[in-house]
């Protein structure tokens, strides 16, 4: 079943100069169509300004389409009466860890969403506990968010979304402001949610190494979907990725270079082990 469906989605906004005169119209999303199935782990890749964040905000009904339609769990996001249901079903985690934590104590922040939904007190506590455990932050429940590391803050934000029992979570560059350790923590937590809780994940990022775990990848460029496929399919198209100036993992790049130099190595190598194996064949054969 499709949890998210976008059809011919167009989003335009009007640029104004300082006096408020219209300077022009920018088309941030240009006829984007894509489906996400329940339980999928989807990655959306692209540069700043490629339209990926604009797309994410449509799933949560923060932005509405200029043209076309977005359905979340069969509900049209542009209809006012669906608004709160959509926001509950499609949770959202943003880039800056400091600017999305409302509570002064970790557990209070996680409880914020359920409070807004009118969940009974006893159940809020249950939800907070299970959500914090799901991201491995339960032992920090009484801490102040200001004392946590970036990765921990983002995990708290994720817990805050899980506590609303969403069907899908949209993460809009959740790792862009984190160091490598924090990035790993967050991606690990996200993968666990997808594997264990079977929550649909839409991960928006510009780090290639984070999309390896996805089962579907979309690459966006200038408001359009430029590439789509499994991570392996995407990584097989090294030249295209390079033309889009996206980062290709060193192992994939090296394999590609070796292949170009005439070695019989398959395209789309993602790990060290795969390259070692392929070179093993070359050396023996």
């Amino acid at each position: 079943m499709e949890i998210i469906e976008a059809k011919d989605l167009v989003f335009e906004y009007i640029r104004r100069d300082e006096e408020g005169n219209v300077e022009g119209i920018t088309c941030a999303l240009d006829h984007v169509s894509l489906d996400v199935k329940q339980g999928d782990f989807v990655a959306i890749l692209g540069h700043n300004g490629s339209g990926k964040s604009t797309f994410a905000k449509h799933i949560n009904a923060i932005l509405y389409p200029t043209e076309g339609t977005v359905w979340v769990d069969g509900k049209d996001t542009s209809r006012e009466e669906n608004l709160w249901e959509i926001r509950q079903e499609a949770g959202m985690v943003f880039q800056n860890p400091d600017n999305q934590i409302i509570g002064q104590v970790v557990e209070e922040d996680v409880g914020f969403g359920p409070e807004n939904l009118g969940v009974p007190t006893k159940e809020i506590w249950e939800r907070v506990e299970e959500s914090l455990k799901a991201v491995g932050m339960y032992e920090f429940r009484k801490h102040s968010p200001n004392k946590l590391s970036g990765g921990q803050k983002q995990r708290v934000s994720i817990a805050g979304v899980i506590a609303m029992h969403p069907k899908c979570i949209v993460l809009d560059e959740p790792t862009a402001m984190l160091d490598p350790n924090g990035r790993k923590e967050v991606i690990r937590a996200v993968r666990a949610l997808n594997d264990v809780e079977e929550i649909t994940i839409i991960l928006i990022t510009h780090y290639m190494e984070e999309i390896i775990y996805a089962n579907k990848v979309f690459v966006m460029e200038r408001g359009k979907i430029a590439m789509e496929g499994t991570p392996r399919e995407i990584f097989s198209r090294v030249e295209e990725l390079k033309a889009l100036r996206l980062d290709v993992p060193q192992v994939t790049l090296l394999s590609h270079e070796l292949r170009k130099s005439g070695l019989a190595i398959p395209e789309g190598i993602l790990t060290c082990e795969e390259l070692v194996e392929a070179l093993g064949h070359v050396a023996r054969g």
Partner: protein
Amino acid sequence: MSIILDHVNYVYEAGTAMEFAALKDVSLTINEGEFIGLIGHTGSGKSTLVQHLNGLLVPTGGNIYYNGKDIHDKEYNKKELRSRVGLVFQYPEHQLFEIDVFSDVCFGPKNLGLDRKEVELRAYAALKQVGIEDEYFYQSPFDLSGGQKRRVAIAGVLAMKPDVLVLDEPTAGLDPKGRDEILDQIAGLREETGMTVILVSHSMEDVARYVGRIIVMNRGQVMFDDVPRAVFRHYRELEEVGLAAPQVTYIMQALRKSGLDVDTDLTTIEEAREEILRAVGK
């Protein structure tokens, strides 16, 4: 022309419950014209260290010498030091404040008390150095894209004509394209002017391509200080402290283990390709 740190210690909030030693007995010599990568994870002390280089933080123990003079001497001119050692903070675009790009870049040289003509010449040169075109000069800095804002902010420090340029995570939050542009620009700048550059980062892969020396910080101490390939030999220890060598290092190590006779001391893809081709006999 060098910076010498002699047994520098720095303790935050000394004497309170929050007391925390950010630097422990750090001794370093930074020579003229070096291109250095200062690596460490969050909280390793690398940001604290760079704030010592221009006297923003005063060490709680030890001394810092710039060109042989103790910078915390009473007679020492700190303002002069800050123009010699330019420090670009993390997310420097958050410090932009002027009405247009050009005036913002003028702020630094103006503070040095130079005459107007010299200030403007320097601002112009600095903006050119970071690749900002004339058409942007009189735009509000807040209307620029993320990468442009950052370059304007870097120009703001360059306009003071420092001998040493220290950049604290200049690529944080940028996308790969923006990151490469900034790093290439910095490398080009160094080539052109010969200034000393210290690049603070938590990414080995980013700096390995550019720098000639890597200093690894961990828990307030210098863990390694050597040329990149020598530092990456310690990839296991690096991993233990939450850092990683470039993926190439791992590939070469894995190939070696699988019985392929390759040199593992490599840092770039090009080197790795040549080495593998040699090893398999093509």
